[in-house]
């Protein structure tokens, strides 16, 4: 009997061990890794069909493609996106048709409640239940609430915000309701659905209003963006990820310089990962002649925190400004209220990223930075106030240096799995007993990748353009840049797959 149980036990382990250990799986992974390449290849292969269609059929074609794309991730959630689209389409029509302001407002509130409750249920239910139980446990009260095993629908935070933006625009009279196909395409547009950017209805609907045609310029610009995106993801983000994972998993084992390198590396990783993803989807969308808004503009070259938020995740920061900060009163309701609005907006920005206190803390830190920045800006403007007498390039470099470091420090909270780890990381970073470094190669690697990111960003920053090379660049240089990008993507970097960080949000 015992032997039979043992045999069964062996049988049960055979399958999962084989599946998890086999290098065959590694090859499966490579196929998954090619998934993004496949999307690009499919887009390129279907371009002739797409451009032979009329405007309406182009939209239908893209809508079908978008739903297929979403089903590829999990077909069960296709119903959610279709129901959400239909209901919000109806809300949009009703808001537009309502005669009086009260009815318009009531419908808007109803629609917001629907959208936020869907988002809240899937994304925040467990977080609030967990926090509620944790808050009452010390008092001996154990509420009978269940944690649910929920799957977060892909891109729910992104398409919910897009829909809310649309409804608010319709409510404000800035946007006429779209037809059902255009609206469904706006919500489910496949390049944007998984991780943004959070597109605006006005810009998007205007572009799909007519038949799209493409020229060589757009094809080259699109492919260039795609290559740059894959370069950032595969050559930078995925390469530094193992170091970051190691440093954040047990910060107490490392010296302060190592931990500092860890912060720098994560700062580069999240930028390369997210902006790389955005470049890929923007490039793919460019091939379809639908421009997606720029989401990053060399953010680490910002001279202050306000500028940083104008350059980092632009679609989210402008969304928060237009649909949260300004409706809350912005800076028009007195100094104290301005600070409260800033803090509230950034706390919600943190919470939007994920149902965890570390994101709330990260948002709180940025809210505080923005409030302090506003305070000092105000006090420095007062006559007679003393300012640091540093001018020109030195001042700019110093400002960039400081901004980069305060942003990098805040990333500790974004990256750490919990507040305790974030605290430990900060503690050992600043603890003088941990002063020193354990690996010179880590310092070298950090400096190297910082130089790579700087090289990518400096030229576009200097000439205020988004690409490394343009059609004006001599063809020899363009060929070399394209070839180097393709070769780096193909032959440099880890062979395993790292999912895009923002897919989690």
């Amino acid at each position: 009997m015992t032997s039979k149980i043992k045999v069964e036990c062996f049988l049960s382990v055979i399958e999962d061990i084989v599946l998890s250990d086999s290098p065959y799986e590694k090859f499966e992974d490579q196929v998954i890794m090619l998934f993004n390449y496949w999307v690009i290849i499919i887009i390129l292969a279907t371009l002739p069909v797409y451009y032979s269609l009329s405007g309406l059929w182009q939209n239908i074609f893209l809508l079908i493609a978008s739903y297929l794309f979403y089903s590829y991730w999990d077909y069960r959630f296709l119903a959610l996106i279709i129901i959400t689209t239909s209901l919000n389409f109806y809300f949009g029509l009703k808001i537009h048709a309502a005669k009086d302001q009260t009815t318009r407002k009531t419908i808007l509130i109803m629609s917001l409640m629907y959208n936020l409750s869907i988002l809240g249920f899937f994304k925040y239910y467990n977080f609030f239940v967990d926090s509620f139980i944790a808050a009452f446990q010390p008092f001996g009260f154990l509420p009978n609430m269940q944690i649910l095993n929920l799957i977060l629908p892909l891109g729910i935070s992104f398409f919910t915000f897009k829909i809310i933006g649309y409804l608010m625009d319709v409510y404000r009279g800035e946007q006429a309701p779209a037809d059902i196909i255009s609206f469904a395409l706006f919500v489910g547009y496949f390049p944007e659905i998984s991780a943004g950017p959070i597109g605006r209805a006005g810009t998007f609907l205007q572009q799909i209003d007519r038949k799209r045609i493409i020229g060589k310029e757009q094809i080259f610009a699109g492919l260039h963006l795609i290559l740059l995106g894959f370069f950032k993801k595969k050559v930078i983000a995925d390469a530094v990820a193992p170091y970051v994972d190691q440093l954040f998993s047990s910060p107490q084992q490392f010296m302060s310089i190592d931990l500092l390198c860890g912060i720098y590396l994560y700062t580069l990783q999240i930028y390369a990962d997210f902006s790389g993803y955005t470049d890929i989807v923007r490039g793919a969308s460019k091939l379809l002649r639908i421009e997606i808004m720029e989401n990053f503009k060399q953010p680490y070259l910002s001279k202050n925190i306000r500028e940083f938020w104008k350059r980092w995740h632009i679609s989210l920061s402008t969304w928060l400004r237009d649909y949260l900060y300004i409706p809350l009163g912005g800076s028009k309701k007195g100094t104290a209220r301005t600070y409260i609005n800033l803090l509230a907006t950034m706390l919600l920005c943190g919470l939007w990223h994920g149902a965890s206190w570390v994101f709330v803390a990260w948002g709180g830190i940025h809210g505080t930075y923005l409030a302090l920045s506003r305070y000092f800006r105000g006090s420095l403007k007062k006559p007679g106030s003393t300012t640091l007498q540093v001018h020109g390039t030195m001042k700019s470099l110093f400002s960039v240096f400081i901004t980069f470091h305060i942003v990098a420090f805040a990333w500790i909270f974004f990256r750490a799995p919990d507040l305790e780890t974030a605290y430990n990381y900060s503690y050992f970073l600043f603890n003088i007993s941990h002063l020193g470094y354990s690996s010179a190669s880590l310092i070298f690697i950090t400096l190297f990748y910082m130089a790579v990111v700087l090289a990518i960003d400096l030229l576009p920053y200097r000439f205020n353009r988004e690409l490394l090379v343009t059609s004006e660049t001599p063809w020899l240089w363009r060929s070399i840049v394209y070839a180097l990008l393709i070769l780096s993507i193909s032959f440099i970097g880890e062979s395993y797959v790292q999912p895009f960080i923002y897919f989690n949000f």
Partner: protein
Amino acid sequence: MSNHLFISIFSFFNKLSSHIKVFILTLIILTCTCVGLSINRDSLEMINNKSFVTPVISYLDLKRPNNAKVIFLGSSRIASCIKRDLFSKLSGIEQSKILILQSNGAGTWEELLFCRKYPDLLNSNPLVIIEVAPWMFNKNFYPLGAGETAFLTWSTFQERLALPDLKLRLLLLSDYFFPHSQRRTLEEWGTIFYSLMIGKRPEPYNPDYIPEYHYKQSAYIKLATDQIFSVRNQIKAMGNYQFAEYKAEYLNRLINIVEKKTKKIVILQPPLRNKYIDVIEGIQELTAANLIYLDYIFTLNNENVHSIVWNRPEDCGLNDSAIIDYGHFNNEGAYLFTQRLFNEIKKLGLIELNAYSGKEAAISPQDNISGLKKP
């Protein structure tokens, strides 16, 4: 004439639009790099090896041994169960002429690779002992062999084409033209360039090395004391067992190559721990799979090829105490096994005593064990 052609091509190129020029030049740079990487696959693997097979290839490449009298081919199991010093004493063959070419997790493809790449190995008419095990023929375990990088480096186009899985086949065939398997981290590329600059090459395989199983027994305490752990870890290799015809084909080809040079071939399966065999016999699917494998091995027998298959340690007069984990031998076990194997080979008439040294190697196994130098 050639100048004229060159000028014509150049002026034609100049007339093209800049987009076309960019496209063509990019393609040329990519093609040149791919060709460069493809033809340097094995140099890159030798400098920055990722496979257990590569040190052996490096060794064969550097030393080009061609006077071996006995060659053992196989995985870490073959290295753990053979004691060259005892084999040398028993047979009278110089120890340096007994070659154990092993790489961890090696399967039939690796064994074929050694002989195919360096056929001179077989010039001295050696006795070739090829290790086999049931998992070596499982389609779902290491489809490319344990040293998959080695497969990506040294496999032929036909071998890639013969892979059973369509996705894998396409991936590897595409790699043949666009060598994406040569992807390495920046640090690895840095190491390669540094090694090239200073002319450094990694240490090749040392055929005199003594497996850790023979002297670092404490490192294997978990394996030695926890049989279930060890057996469970290895039984995974039998999971989803499907007999791989293409892996059997590697062995057939290896035998063909060897048979052209020597008529003394042994297919050897060293015994496994009893617990391992119990598990196989306790699961109907695995028993059936094992039978298919054994059937195949026995079909290989002919006047030149002799199979010696020992399932349990008792089959060769040993017991579980000779084995450290599921199937690697400890130091004492290796001495005893070498003696048993030698006797069996002698019985088959594949080795003639005194044929090489002219001395009688008549010593009892127990004397051998106590009298021989141990690590």
